[in-house]
């Protein structure tokens, strides 16, 4: 395994002056390519902030952030946007699909936004992913007509669309029933195994964490275990 990403002495402070709140206190973390890791810790420990920084949606206050050998710490917004599109996938707790689009259109979005249109190749790839997620009969369904579990599987397919090296999942099963949660986790494990995609899954669920090969525990803004 080779190092996929590394954050060192990561500090993140929100607000200024007396209202300033420090969430990350010099967090250091390295992840290798192909890992399936769970991010554990109590609410307010800094898990979501860490995921947001790793997802290049936010700059750290200080510290360094590198991924694929690139220093992302002070990269411009447009550079981070392009990097995010190509190398990082997101799965949110509440699926966060575009409500006025079909399952396939949602899955194709990351590619279409880069290429400026929905190419045939992108649609084929999107369909393959949806079939793999067990949604072959829901490809052209508006997302509003899908169940919670189905929506989350569409979100996983969307995260994988551009074949990213890293998928960040923030409580991906937190809003699902046990059966749906198990289905989603099985898919994640399968893709990690088959394609070597690195997953970092933030969760409070120890059963979900147990399915991952590595557990990263965050407490008070640092990695504690």
């Amino acid at each position, binding site marked *: 395994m080779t190092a996929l990403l590394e954050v060192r002495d990561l500090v993140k402070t929100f607000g200024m002056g007396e209202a300033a709140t420090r969430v990350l206190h010099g967090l250091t973390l390295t992840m290798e390519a192909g890992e399936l890791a769970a991010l554990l810790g109590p609410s307010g420990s800094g898990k979501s902030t860490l995921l947001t920084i790793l997802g290049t949606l*936010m700059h750290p206050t200080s510290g360094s952030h590198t991924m694929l050998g690139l220093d992302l710490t002070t990269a411009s917004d447009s550079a981070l946007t392009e990097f995010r599109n190509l190398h990082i996938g997101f799965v949110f707790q509440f699926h966060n699909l*575009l409500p006025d689009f079909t399952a396939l259109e949602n899955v194709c979005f990351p590619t279409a936004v*880069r290429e400026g249109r929905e190419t045939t190749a992108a649609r084929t790839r999107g369909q393959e992913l949806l079939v793999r997620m067990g949604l072959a009969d829901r490809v052209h369904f508006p997302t509003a007509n899908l169940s919670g579990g189905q929506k989350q599987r569409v979100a996983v397919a969307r995260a994988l669309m551009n074949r990213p090296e890293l998928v960040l999942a923030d409580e991906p099963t937190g809003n699902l029933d046990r059966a749906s949660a198990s289905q989603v986790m099985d898919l994640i494990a399968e893709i990690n195994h088959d394609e070597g995609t690195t997953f970092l899954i933030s969760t409070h669920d120890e059963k979900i964490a147990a399915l991952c090969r590595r557990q990263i525990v965050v407490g008070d803004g640092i990695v504690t275990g």
Partner: protein
Amino acid sequence: MLYALKIATRYLTASKAQTALLVFGVAIGVFIFIFMSALIGGLAEFIMMRTAGDMAHITIQAEAVDPALLQPNTGRTVLLVQEPTTQTTAILKDTAAFLPLIEALPGVTGTSQQINGSGFLTRGVQVTQVSINGLEPGHESVIVNLASYITEGTANLGAGGVLVGKTLAEDMDLSLGQTVRLQSAQAIDAALTITGIYEIGSGGPDRRQAYVSLATARTLFALPQGVTRIEIKLADLYTADALAPRIMALTGLDAKSWTEQAAQLLEALQAQAQTGFILKAFALLTIIIGVASALLLSTYRRRPEIGIMRAMGAGRWFVMVVFVSQGALIGLMGGLFGAAAGYGVLLAFPSRVSFGPGQSGLPIDIRQGAYGLAIWLTTLGAILASILPARAAARLDPVTAIGQ
């Protein structure tokens, strides 16, 4: 761009009622714009037709020659004696030489040679001072469309005939076929038969004007040759200012554009045009404010989606194009519907025939609806209106937006 346009279209079709309402609002604004253009433009043309339309657009008047100054030798007295003369008016000679040149100029639709002067119309003991216009037979309606104003008789001026205004006829109790005496200021008179009575609708011409043939006027004013005035009609009266100097250069005669004598009319028309411009600008402003506020609301409503798009790798520029495209589509659709509605409503109004004398109805000119301009300006206005909300959308922090 294509994909951003697809998303913009999807957003618009996803909220059909809201989009329809927005397009309807824009269409109303465009309708007002078009209606005002047709009304203001039609009104201007109506006024021009009813005023300058019956005027000579270029006039050539013979210039009176100043008498030569006789310098007396030093110490001598010079006694000047003015010989009696029947000619009191300057005349234009050799019209046959330069008239064809003028008539050949592009934009000239007609010329009228005239002999004008003052005189008295007498019937029995009634005497009224009149302005006498001698016109060439066959050219009676070249400048003032006399034929269209005739209420009795004919506009054709034969030898021994005279046309008088309706008010003058009523004042002197004149009727068609009666004989009257017309005496010029040179004290030459002629017995003439009333062959036509006209009503222009203007006090001066209807009360104090008498039209006779050019031959009769020659007799009355003792002008065996030449004319006192040449009037020229143009296809486009606004070209008079450019054409008058050309005629001067061509003939060496003093040609005056109608605008020199109608400055007040031009000012009034300009003021009217400015009023129309302001009204149309307000209509456009309403469209811009409407589109901007609607898109601001849309931006606010779609904040989480904007956050998701940004997280998935959509740049700020892409988000801006999505919202600006929505504005452009709303403007274009509203413009097209408004223009179609405007054209449809304007069709119900009387055509430009109603601009003619004796016709009634609103002077609306359907051809002056400025349909293309309205659609273009509305689309442009809607694009401008969408820039502010689009910028706000593009600057959204994706983390905050997704969390909402």
